């Protein structure tokens, strides 16, 4: 009975558990039925209401491009800044939700009279296809007021179109300083594929040349965006989120706008280059190259048929306007080279200031050839030989020095190698050497005395850039410190930077070498018979050297325009404490003293007016060189191996070379 009772109880308990499970099943069923009813109520009964809510409920992302930093001259005057423009953008998500294809829409818009550029729109759509659809595609930048009004008026028909504000590069001075500034353009597909551009998107503007390229990271800032709710007709009904853009850094260059303007005016319509720099610290005050181009082409018109035609024209122009002659052009230096030969000979002790006379001889017989001097100078000493630019003297001095020592010395002065300027695509050039001749002249690979003789006056296989020459002469004038030329002074604002890329070559020269050369170059400009009298400036001790570089062997010259000589003038001032060095090169005009020296004078006049009469030379230019490492680092010949500069790290510079636009190399 007891066991039976237990059994019953047990069964009752089992039953109770089963009942409880059944109860749970019913509860669950009720829960699911309740949910089903709720879904019915929302989805079927109230469907219309929620459908309307969904239609009025679209989010769009509208980018707010960060304004690119302005570029200022050394006194803070604007060279490049931005102006607001409006762009028509396409919201691809909205378009897809309406079941339409972008290409189809573009055709329709063009048919309706909106002037879109098929080619660039196609490229952009293609580039953006890998990006999330909520990133809009720019259909047309620089939209006119009428075009914006057109789009706004058709918001209902084309809810996928939007207007975005976009700052665009503005060049108040036109083509001024174009080669230094460079230009901006849309990032290329090749660049996007590389890891260092990971944080860029298709359509982003990026510096493609000049300062815009080298200092892109400082200039570009960071884009912001707005996330807005728009209704089914594209009207904005609210803003969900706004991330303000971080503007790029404004950059101050070492360029002096006044000197730059004078330099470009002086070149006028002639092909050539001018560089003015401070030899005490490498700061470039002016850098001009003519012919130039209009950088606004790339930021404003490149996506129009006219703009592309203009660009093709630039590429096809035989005068190569895109090419920066000051750093990419390499030329024989003519007689300006004599300063370098003289410096080497003085340092080697081949001549001394007291014993430096050599015959002119109206030239020199070398083997079976007679190499002429342009004048008859008797037995000049070094000073006089430089003042009157006696070739005969230097033929003999060059032979004494010999090609090996000449090569070694000019290389120490930084020639035939890149100066390390913070601009892309600098060209190294060549200095004469046995190896060079053997390489480029396989028919007559042996170095002969004749080669040494013409090398002594900067002809033959000399091919260096104007920038290299002015750096070398300026460096000798300040006693043998060859600073890295640069155009970047500082990036303004929080997190800014100053130029730290100076890696000077230091070749301590004897005091008397420097004295003799300074005084001889002063004589060129200020003494009777001097070849550079046209550069004389009242109240400023300008010292210089003319050069007239033959483009082709005299025997073969036809008198055609492009066979005429290049006119050089390289100089510095004031003589006893050089603060500015200027090189002028004008292609195919004739004598350096006649064509280039007056150009330099114009620059010195402006310089004197600005800096000397205001007696603030020291305040403006001098302080920076006192701190320069060159002065304190003693007499090492090799540049100090300092840590890579944060401003132009080596890697960035290398990138510059690989990513440089093709058009600059031909």
């Amino acid at each position, binding site marked *: 009975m007891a066991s039976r009772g237990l059994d019953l109880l047990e069964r009752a308990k089992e039953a109770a558990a089963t009942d409880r499970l059944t109860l749970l099943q019913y509860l669950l069923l009720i829960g699911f039925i309740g949910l089903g009813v709720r879904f019915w109520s929302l989805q079927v009964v109230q469907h219309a209401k*929620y459908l309307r809510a969904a239609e009025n409920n679209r989010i769009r992302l509208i980018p707010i491009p960060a304004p690119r930093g302005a570029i200022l001259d050394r006194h803070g005057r604007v060279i490049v800044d931005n102006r607001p423009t409006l762009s028509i953008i396409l919201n691809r998500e909205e378009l897809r939700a309406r079941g339409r294809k972008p290409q189809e829409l573009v055709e329709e818009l063009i048919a309706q009279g909106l002037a879109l550029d098929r080619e660039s729109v196609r490229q952009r759509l293609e580039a953006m296809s890998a990006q999330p659809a909520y990133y809009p595609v720019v259909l047309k930048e620089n939209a006119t007021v009428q075009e914006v009004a057109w789009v706004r008026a058709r918001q209902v028909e084309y809810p996928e179109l939007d207007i975005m504000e976009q700052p665009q590069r503005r060049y108040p001075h036109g083509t001024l300083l174009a080669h230094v500034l460079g230009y901006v353009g849309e990032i290329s597909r090749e660049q996007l594929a590389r890891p260092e551009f990971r944080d860029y998107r298709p359509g982003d503007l990026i510096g493609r040349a000049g300062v815009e390229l080298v200092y892109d990271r400082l200039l570009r800032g960071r884009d912001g965006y707005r996330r807005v709710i728009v209704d089914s007709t594209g009207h904005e009904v609210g803003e969900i989120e706004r991330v303000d853009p971080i503007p790029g850094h404004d950059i101050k260059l070492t360029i002096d706008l006044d000197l730059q303007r004078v330099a470009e005016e002086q070149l006028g319509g002639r092909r050539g280059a001018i560089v003015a720099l401070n030899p005490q610290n490498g700061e470039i005050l002016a850098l001009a190259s003519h012919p130039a181009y209009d950088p606004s082409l790339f930021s404003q018109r490149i996506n129009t048929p006219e703009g592309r035609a203009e660009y093709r024209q630039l590429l096809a122009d035989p005068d190569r306007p895109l090419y920066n002659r000051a750093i990419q052009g390499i030329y024989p230096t003519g007689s300006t080279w004599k300063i370098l030969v003289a410096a080497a000979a003085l340092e080697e002790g081949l001549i001394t200031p007291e014993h430096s006379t050599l015959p002119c001889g109206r030239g020199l017989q070398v083997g079976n050839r007679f190499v002429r001097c342009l004048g008859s100078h008797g037995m000049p000493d070094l000073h006089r030989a430089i003042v009157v630019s006696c070739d005969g003297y230097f033929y003999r001095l060059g032979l004494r020095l010999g090609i090996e020592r000449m090569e070694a010395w000019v290389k120490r002065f930084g020639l035939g190698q890149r100066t390390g300027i913070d601009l892309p695509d600098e060209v190294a050039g060549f200095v004469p050497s046995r190896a060079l001749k053997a390489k480029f002249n396989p028919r007559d690979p042996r170095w002969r005395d004749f080669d040494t003789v013409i090398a002594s006056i900067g002809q033959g296989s000399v091919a260096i850039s104007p920038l290299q020459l002015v750096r070398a002469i300026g460096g000798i004038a300040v006693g043998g410190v060859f600073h890295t030329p640069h155009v970047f002074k500082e990036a303004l604002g929080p997190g800014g930077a100053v130029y730290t890329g100076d890696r000077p070559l230091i070749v301590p020269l004897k005091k008397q070498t420097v004295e003799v050369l300074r005084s001889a170059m002063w004589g060129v400009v200020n003494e009777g018979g001097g070849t550079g009298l046209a550069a004389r400036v009242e109240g400023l001790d300008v010292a210089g050297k003319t050069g007239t570089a033959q483009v082709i062997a005299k025997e073969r010259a036809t008198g055609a325009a492009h066979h005429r000589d290049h006119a050089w003038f390289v100089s510095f001032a004031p003589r006893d404490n050089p603060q500015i060095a200027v090189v002028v090169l004008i292609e195919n005009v004739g004598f350096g003293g006649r064509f280039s020296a007056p150009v330099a004078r114009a620059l010195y006049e402006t310089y004197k007016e600005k800096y000397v009469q205001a007696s603030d030379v020291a305040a403006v230019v001098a302080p920076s060189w006192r701190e320069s490492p060159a002065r304190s680092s003693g007499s090492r010949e090799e540049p100090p191996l300092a840590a890579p500069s944060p401003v132009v790290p080596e890697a960035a510079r290398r990138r510059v070379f690989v990513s440089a636009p093709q058009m600059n190399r031909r």
Partner: protein
Amino acid sequence: MLALLGVLEIYSSQPQEEFWKRQLIWLGVALVVMFVTATVDYHRIVEAAPFIYGGCLFLLVLVLPFGQEVYGTKAWLGIGRFSIQPSEFAKIGTILMLAPFLAERWEEHRREREPYLTMRDVLVASGIAGAPVLLILLEPDVGTALTFFPILGGMLFVAGLRPRVIAAGVVSVAVALSLGWYFRHQVLKPYQVQRIEVIFHPERADRRGYGYQTYQSMIAVGSGGLTGRGLFRGTQSRLRFLPKAYTDFIGAVVAEELGFVGMLGVLVLYAFILLRALNHAKLARDSVGTLLVTGVVALLSFHILVNLSMIVGLVPVIGIPLPLMSYGGSALVATFIGLGLIANVRLHRYVN
């Protein structure tokens, strides 16, 4: 099938990201794990319960100093490219721990002709469930912590509770809820209050506020209509109105894209799984089996009912994923372990 639909909808809501691929990988892992848990006799699994439970607690402790923080909650442990969420596994661990304990008490009481659990049993059981709850609250993850209560409640209920204890429980929950609501501004964080208030006035939701999610979810569901907008055509989710459309709000994506018909299918499938599981519970060979199934069913049904109620605006937003469909590897694997256990109890329902 539900899980595959989940993957599809994750793809639909986050097409350009790698979510759906990962989910597929996890699904593969989960299926293997389920097969294993279904075939090994559940008694052997239950024997290992203290270790599994202990291991879960250890991971929960580990997550506090080493976890990855996502949305302010430190719930994830990173292992290589994948990360796991120990709290999901702790749910299974707790069920495995509670089942043998309650079953033993049940058998003992049965011998003593005592139909109900004693107060002491209830307290010990609460302790077992309480430990992970406390650790999870420290992460802090209130939503996940809440899911332990239905597990405990369901298992206690089936193991036998005195009617007056049940009544007391119901009353105290009701009192706690109303007190909590009265003092909501003291007890809850502002966003939590917003999430609750939106239930009553969805249209008034602040567009930038937390309640907005619920309203957006309701719009998504409502705009789906009878037959839906079609797969991959839901504007709500694709245009990013729905936050976390691939996890907690995956149900809303289904509702938007497949409509009432699709949703009804989903509901029927879930109901079928759960009700059938409870039938297995009735047929189980012993009380351990019954209780295991009950625990898993309680866990899953709480998740399903609360999550779906959440997307239709019946309960506030708490971070509870929809089993089988939401993105999340740990939850998926844990769910499949649970389903494996149910299958296991069914497979071993005959005494040898």
